[in-house]
Structure formats: C-alpha cells, structure tokens
C-alpha cells in the first residue's frame, strides 16, 4: 500500500475545521477541555449529516429504489472504512452499536450465554461503570464470579496481582484500554497474551483509546474491541463492536427483529449472517455513514503529529499544575494519555468546575462513572481536564490562570 504524504500537523489549521470551538461562553472564548466525555465535530462531519438528511435519507438493506440502494452502499462503505481504520480482517467483524456501553452489553448478553456457573470474568479496579455493571448483571444471572484486579496509587495495574487472578476459570478479561479518569494506558497487548494463555477471551474498552492512538486489532489480538463514535469526532448514538469472526459466529443473537433474520415463520426463525445477526432493527444510518466521514477525516490528517501535540499539551499542563500548593494529580501512571484528573485540598471539585465554567472553560467534575475508583482514592470526585488535538498551550495558560483565581476565591 502506498503511504499518502500528509501535511504536518498544525493545530491552528485543525481548529478551523471545528466550528463549535469558535464560540463565546459567558463572553469568554470557549476552552473545551471535556474531550474525555465527548469530542467536537469537524465541519466535514456536520456537512455529511446535513447532506444525508437533505438528499439521501432512506432505509437500508431492503429497498429496490435508488435512494435506498445508495444509503445501503454508503452505510456498508462506512463499515469498510472502520474495518481498515482498526485493521480488522473483515467488514463482517464490524458490528454497529449505539456506543461503547451498548457494545459491552451486547457481549455480556451474547457471549455470556456461552458461559456456565463458576466461570470467572476478570475486570480491573479502574473500569468505567459501563465495564462493571453489565458483568455484575451477567454474573447474577448465570452464577459467574467477577474478579477485580487491583491498581497501585499511581493508577497502574499491579501485574503480579493480575497474574494471580488469572486462571483456567477465567473466561473473559474485560479491561479498559485507557482509563477515563486516570489516563492510564494499560499494557493490553501483553495482558491479552496472558489471558489467551489460560484460554480466556479479551474485551478491550476502547472508549478512550480510539481517538488517541492507532488501533490495530490484529496486532493487539483482542477478541472484542468497543468504542463510541462521538468520542471520535463523529455523531452520538452510534458505536462499534469489533469481534473476531469465529467468535461472533458462535455467539447467539443479542436482540431480535428486522435485519437480523434470514427467514421467519411462526414456528422457527433462522438468523442472518454477520454482521447483520447483531444489528436488529433499522440502525442509526446517518450515524454510521457520518462516522465513516469522521474516520475519513482522521485518515487525512497527520495523526502521529496530532498525538505528539496531545502529549506535549499534557506534559505542559502537568508541569504548570505541579506548582499549585495542595493540588494532587490523580493518576500518575508512567504510560498515560491526555487526561489530567486532580483534587485540591479543602475544595470540592464541583465548586472548581462551577467557577471554571464562568471563565468559559468546560471541564468535567465528579466521579466520572468510576465510583469504585473514587472509593479507592478516598475522594468524592476529581476535576478532569481532557485534551484533544485541537487544544492549545494558550488555552492551558488561560485554564491555569482561571484555576488559580478560582482556588483563591474558594480557599
């Protein structure tokens, strides 16, 4: 394959692509540091949404008419773009879902049917509620055992403890690739090898990794990889479950309905092939197509340069925050991404978030849907600044200045 020469990453140029960044909040230029929650959308994605609903809207996979055929082609082309983006073997391995949470629930419901009482599922102490609760529900339903691999105070998995918890009984390792609260990048390739060595399957929660690094599911060798479009600069309400074909083939359907069947009588229904077996009902057609647009956009930019820029932003912010008295960064893993969670002695994160908002700065405060992790650190929550490649050092300067003012007000 020929490498397309891309223009070196330039943050000023990238920002031009994102109209939402050009607005004022309470009379101040918006500083959007809540990218861990969701990302803003480039103009090309907004145009694609408009174009679909203006000219191309039709249901897919069943119409003989022109518009339906065109929408079907575009939807399936998007699937292929996503396949190549994460280097899956086949387009059939790309299942459209509502998002990361939906993908995990699909695996818990469907792969869960292949498990029997006494089997174990291994997660870690840094999981999002979405990668805890579906497994708890499955364990209750099927009499399985949920094991939790502990972390150290830096926010890194304790590998010796992880090794001890992994056994022949482990049927699934469900682990976040990157922690949404701590920014920790887990060594998932190595952990996948260990899990496979005892015969366990591996699900990677890619909600926070898909937008920050090149994902190669073949190289990672994970059995499932799930992510949401809206964190990847695409529309909300659509996401992807990647699964290895042989495994997906063995799994029973998740939901019943249109599109997932091949033949229905009142006595018996036979199911459609992959990926449609797992896509009951009319999917989020515009979402799928426009996620494809977003992937195309990412393919057109210098992602290595973008990642480097994100790394520089994180280092720069951490360096400035280090000088704050009483400020503690939560999550200091050796290998981490552009997420900075922190607490300030004697000040509740909610107050910091409220005052930063008045400066036009969007951060996330609270437990970030990781309550067990908050219990581990014995804190009610954190303030979290999470950067995307369109953020700048100047924004970090303004953030640090506003933070200093806010802390002085609250002290």
């Amino acid at each position, binding site marked *: 394959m020929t490498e397309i020469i891309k223009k070196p990453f330039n943050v000023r140029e990238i920002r031009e692509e994102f109209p939402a960044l050009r607005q004022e909040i309470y009379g101040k230029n918006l500083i959007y540091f809540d990218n861990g929650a969701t990302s803003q959308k480039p103009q090309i994605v907004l145009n694609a949404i408009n174009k679909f609903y203006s000219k191309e809207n039709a249901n897919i996979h069943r119409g003989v008419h022109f518009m339906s055929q065109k929408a079907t082609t575009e939807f399936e082309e998007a699937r292929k773009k996503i396949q190549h983006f994460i280097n899956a073997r086949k387009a059939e391995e790309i299942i459209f879902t509502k998002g990361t949470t939906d993908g995990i629930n699909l695996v818990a419901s469907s792969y869960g049917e292949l498990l029997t009482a006494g089997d174990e599922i291994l997660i870690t102490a840094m999981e999002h509620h979405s990668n805890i609760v579906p497994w708890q529900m499955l364990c209750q339903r099927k009499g399985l055992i949920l094991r939790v691999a502990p972390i150290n105070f830096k926010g890194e998995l304790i590998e010796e403890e992880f090794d001890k918890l992994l056994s022949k009984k482990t049927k699934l390792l469900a682990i976040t690739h990157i922690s949404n609260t701590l920014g920790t990048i887990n060594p998932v390739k190595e952990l996948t090898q260990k899990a496979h060595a005892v015969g366990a399957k591996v699900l990677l929660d890619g909600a926070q990794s898909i937008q920050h690094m090149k994902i190669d599911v073949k190289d990672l060798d994970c059995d499932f990889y799930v992510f949401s479009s809206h964190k990847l600069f695409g529309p909300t309400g659509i996401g992807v479950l990647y699964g290895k074909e042989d495994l997906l083939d063995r799994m029973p359907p998740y939901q019943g309905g249109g599109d997932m069947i091949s033949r229905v009588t009142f006595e018996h229904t036979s199911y459609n092939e992959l990926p449609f077996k797992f896509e009951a009902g009319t999917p989020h057609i515009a979402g799928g197509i426009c996620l494809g647009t977003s992937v195309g956009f990412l393919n057109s930019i210098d992602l290595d340069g973008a990642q480097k820029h994100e790394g520089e932003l994180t280092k720069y912010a951490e360096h400035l925050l280090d000088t704050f008295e009483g400020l503690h960064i939560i999550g200091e893993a050796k290998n981490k991404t552009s997420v900075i969670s922190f607490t300030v002695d004697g000040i509740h*994160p909610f*107050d910091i*978030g409220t005052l930063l908002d008045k400066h036009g700065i969007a951060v996330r405060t609270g437990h970030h849907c990781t309550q067990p992790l908050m219990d581990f650190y014995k804190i009610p929550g954190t303030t979290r600044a999470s950067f995307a490649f369109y953020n700048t050092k100047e924004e970090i300067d303004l953030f640090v200045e506003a933070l200093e003012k806010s802390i002085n*007000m*609250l002290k």
Partner: protein
Amino acid sequence: MAILLTIQEKQDEIVSEFEVFDDWMEKYEYLIDLGKDLPLIQEELKTEERLIEGCQSRVWLNADFNDGKMQFSADSEAIITKGIIGLLIRVLNDEHPETILKTDLKFISDIGLQEHLSPTRANGLNGMIKKMKMEALKYIQH
C-alpha cells in the same frame, strides 16, 4: 428589636443585595462567603435520612417544627451550593408551613442563579427544595 420581614420581603432584600454586584465574580465571592459562614448542621444529624444525594455533591437537610414555624439547617460538600442553601434557609426559616408551600422562590432566578436549580446540575439543590416543601407539608394543620 428586629423587624419581622415577610417571606416576600426577605426575597426582595436578597435581590437588592445582589444588585450591587457588577460581575459574576463578585456574586460568587459573596455566595462563597455565605457558604463559609453558614452554621453547619450538627454532625450527628448528617444521617442517611437527611441526605439528599446529588450526583456530584451531597446535601444534608434537617427540619424542625416549633411554635407553628419551620426551622431548617443544612450542609453541602460544595461551598457554592452551601451559599445558595444559606439564602434558601434565610428565606424559609421561621415561616409557617403553609407559607413555605405557597411560596414561589423567585429570588433564585432574579439573582441569576437559576442554573443551579436545574435538575441536570446534580448538586442536590433541586432535591433539597423539594424536601423542604415535603417537610413543611408534614406539619400542615388540617
């Protein structure tokens, strides 16, 4: 002797206090100071039954009924929320339950703090006002 203000007069008084602030920062500084000054609810009263769970910060509310009037004390983990609670208590304390139930707490939006009462704000304030009214309802004379 202190002059007893009606519930409406108390609201008007707060609105005029806030009128002197030129910008949001002065307003929030005032709220934060109020939060710092608010007498804390007694520790032993911070029980599960008195807890109003917000997604982000927790609020505790205690209600008493003496001589036909309601008395509230409350606390929050977040100081800005606590400042707003201070204002609410100032308005609603020493009022008859009937008055509390009838009153529209308009002053909150008049001073530009309505965003704090949004159910999505998750700071427990909305739940607290509901609970203050529920407590008042318990003591309505039939």
